[in-house]
């Protein structure tokens, strides 16, 4: 299907078979089971509570309470066990997180209700304990949904390692494990294979794809004596290499180490909800404890004092924090998905909202990575060049073939077609030698890098000029970012002239070129130390470590698996424009979360004083909690744009 679309000039990408793979999501499954048990138990107990509230007397009420207890206690014990466990863990390490007030409130509400039931009391909070559990589990489940399994980019990178190699010895060639190679060994690497070692080239001439280091799609010509790095892919002709570094010392391995160091060094990001919980949890505990002590001392009635404290805990329970933030994140993630972005990490949305600097990789990100033919000779020459280009996988050859196809030219017949490493393609055409290739090889007069030349016989060569094509949506994206007052930079592994040309077209002033992967990381770390929040957009292997270092990162759909694994957000389409609307959405989501906190605090301001004076019946407590939960959830899903 992708091939069919490509043939009509549409660039299609497989929709993330990797991200959409059905992994058995055990944690999500457990959450759903707990949620459903809490939900159905809550419905039942609430129905029973309605009878109590509508004025059941003495023995009837007691009977209804016992039935509620029989349903609620096992349900709470089952559904809320994750809160109890997490709360206990936090207490053991001497911290107060959101789980502590939740666990305390649920346990106290259930325990006190049981006590009241046993002694024939009027009020039981079984429904409150269950609805608390239900709403909080709902928040937990939404939160879980926004977190897709994050895969390790370092692992993707190690997939590039060649596992076996052909070692040349004096008498024979043998296939050995790449791990068994030693420095000084000579290995032969066939076209299409990646180098297993760092080493020195012994073959006279060859072509190498070093895009994993430079991000550059154009092959490089290498000659005997050149140093080459493991992970580079051999093109055209086989290469013989004398190993200088093997196994753990290769440059590919050290790059994988750098990526995994960046992955591990990524500070755990404290979301708005985390930061709010830090203040909220102790405040709630102190309030409930103060209410308990006051009533205890003022009236000496322990039962009543506990009841007031429970009412305070139930009403203040951080539903808004635990439910509102995940609900907004889910709604915003849905909105982003419709705009064409897939959030891979739950906190990426909040990180994105804080961005003040955007760093682009050039090749494959700002540009499509495929050169386009801009200046060409007449149709006959183009058809001949396209016929020659069939023998080569060089991006220039592909561009020439595409141009011929677009003009529906019929290609002439050639004989003795062959590709010469480092030079080009040659063949015989109606008795004459025809050649398509580099400037040096075809004796072209002009010395200009990014061009191919066609020479017929001994005629003057004719020129094919190429230009990098900008990716769709790049111009409006950069213009929009600059208009928003965001600092835009380019960091590329490509040479300076090519980088400046693109920067000029886009109006970007800050360009760094000739960067190795570790240089990109260093620049980003410097920016971070200056206090900037950087959004990195990149697609190549050489960007993986940088994507992990940046505050938040985006990879386009065409990016390599490794870069997609390293980034927080993946674009689903070819167009980069959704980035700008995504930033707007993330800021709107941030505002919505704060709005929800205000709503929740508003409810508390009304309901907490009622509870403190001891006037809160279970009915009021449940109503206040449910109303605030429902209104923040509705506010959360009210279209985030």
């Amino acid at each position, binding site marked *: 299907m992708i091939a069919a679309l490509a043939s009509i000039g549409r660039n299609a990408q497989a929709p993330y*078979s990797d991200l959409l793979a059905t992994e058995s999501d055990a944690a999500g499954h457990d959450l759903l089971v707990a949620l459903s048990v809490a939900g159905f138990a809550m419905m*039942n107990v609430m129905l029973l509570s309605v009878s109590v509230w509508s004025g059941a007397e003495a023995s009837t009420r007691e009977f209804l309470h016992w039935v509620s207890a029989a349903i609620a206690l096992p349900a709470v014990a089952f559904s809320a066990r994750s809160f109890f466990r997490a709360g206990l863990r936090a207490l053991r390490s001497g911290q107060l997180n959101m789980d502590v007030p939740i666990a305390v409130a649920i346990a106290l509400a259930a325990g006190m209700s049981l006590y009241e039931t046993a002694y024939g009391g009027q009020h039981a909070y079984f429904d409150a304990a269950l609805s608390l559990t239900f709403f909080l589990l709902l928040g937990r489940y939404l939160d879980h949904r926004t977190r897709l399994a994050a895969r390790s980019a370092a692992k993707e990178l190690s997939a590039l390692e060649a596992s076996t190699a052909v070692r040349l010895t004096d008498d024979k060639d043998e296939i050995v494990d790449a791990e068994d190679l030693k420095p000084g060994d000579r290995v032969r690497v066939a076209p299409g294979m990646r180098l297993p070692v760092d080493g020195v080239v012994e073959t006279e001439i060859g072509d190498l794809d070093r895009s994993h280091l430079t991000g550059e799609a154009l092959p490089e010509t290498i000659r005997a004596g050149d140093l080459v790095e493991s992970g580079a892919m051999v093109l055209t002709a086989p290469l013989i290499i004398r190993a200088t570094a093997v196994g753990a010392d290769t440059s590919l391995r050290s790059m994988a180490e750098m990526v995994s160091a960046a992955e591990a060094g990524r500070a755990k990001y404290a979301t708005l909800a985390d930061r709010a919980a830090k203040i909220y949890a102790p405040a709630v505990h102190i309030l409930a404890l103060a209410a308990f002590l006051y009533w205890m001392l003022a009236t000496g009635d322990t039962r009543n004092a506990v009841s007031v404290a429970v009412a305070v805990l139930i009403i203040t329970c951080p539903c808004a924090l635990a439910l509102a933030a995940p609900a907004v994140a889910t709604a915003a993630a849905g909105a982003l998905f419709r705009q064409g972005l897939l959030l891979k990490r739950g906190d990426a949305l909040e990180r994105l909202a804080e961005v003040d600097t955007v760093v682009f990789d050039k090749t494959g990100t700002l540009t499509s990575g495929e050169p386009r033919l801009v200046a060409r000779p007449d149709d006959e020459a183009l058809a001949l060049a396209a016929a020659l280009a069939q023998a080569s996988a060089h991006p220039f050859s592909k561009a020439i073939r595409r141009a011929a196809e677009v003009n529906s030219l019929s290609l002439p017949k050639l004989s003795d077609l062959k590709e010469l490493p480092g030079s080009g393609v040659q063949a015989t055409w109606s008795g004459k030698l025809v050649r398509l290739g580099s400037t040096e090889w075809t004796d072209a007069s002009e010395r200009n890098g990014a061009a191919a030349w066609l020479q017929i016989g001994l005629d003057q060569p004719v020129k094919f000029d190429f230009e990098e094509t900008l990716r769709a949506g790049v111009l409006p994206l950069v213009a929009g970012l600059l208009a928003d007052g965001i600092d835009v930079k380019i960091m590329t592994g490509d040479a300076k002239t090519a980088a400046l040309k693109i920067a000029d077209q886009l109006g970007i002033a800050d360009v760094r070129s000739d960067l190795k992967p570790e240089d990109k990381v260093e620049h980003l770390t410097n920016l971070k130390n200056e206090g900037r929040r950087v959004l990195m957009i990149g697609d190549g292997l050489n960007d993986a470590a940088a994507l992990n270092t940046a505050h938040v990162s985006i990879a386009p759909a065409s990016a390599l698996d490794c870069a997609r694994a390293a980034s927080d957000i993946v674009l689903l389409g070819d167009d980069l424009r959704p980035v700008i609307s995504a930033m707007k959405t993330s800021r709107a989501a941030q505002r919505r979360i704060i709005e929800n906190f205000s709503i929740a605090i508003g409810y508390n301001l009304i309901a907490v004083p009622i509870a403190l004076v001891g006037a809160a019946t279970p009915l009021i407590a449940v109503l206040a909690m449910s109303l605030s939960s429902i209104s923040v959830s509705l506010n959360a899903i009210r279209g985030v744009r």
Partner: protein
Amino acid sequence: MTILLLLVPVAVFLGFAGLAAFLWALRSGQFEDAERQGWRVLIDDDDPD
């Protein structure tokens, strides 16, 4: 009020029936990855017959 002795068990039974139905749906995979099925039409089969 003896009617409660009939109605309460009926209500509880219906609740359990609902829960059982949901758990069955969950176990048969109806909530797993609602997204992928929509995309699947675009992914080529490995071996088209």
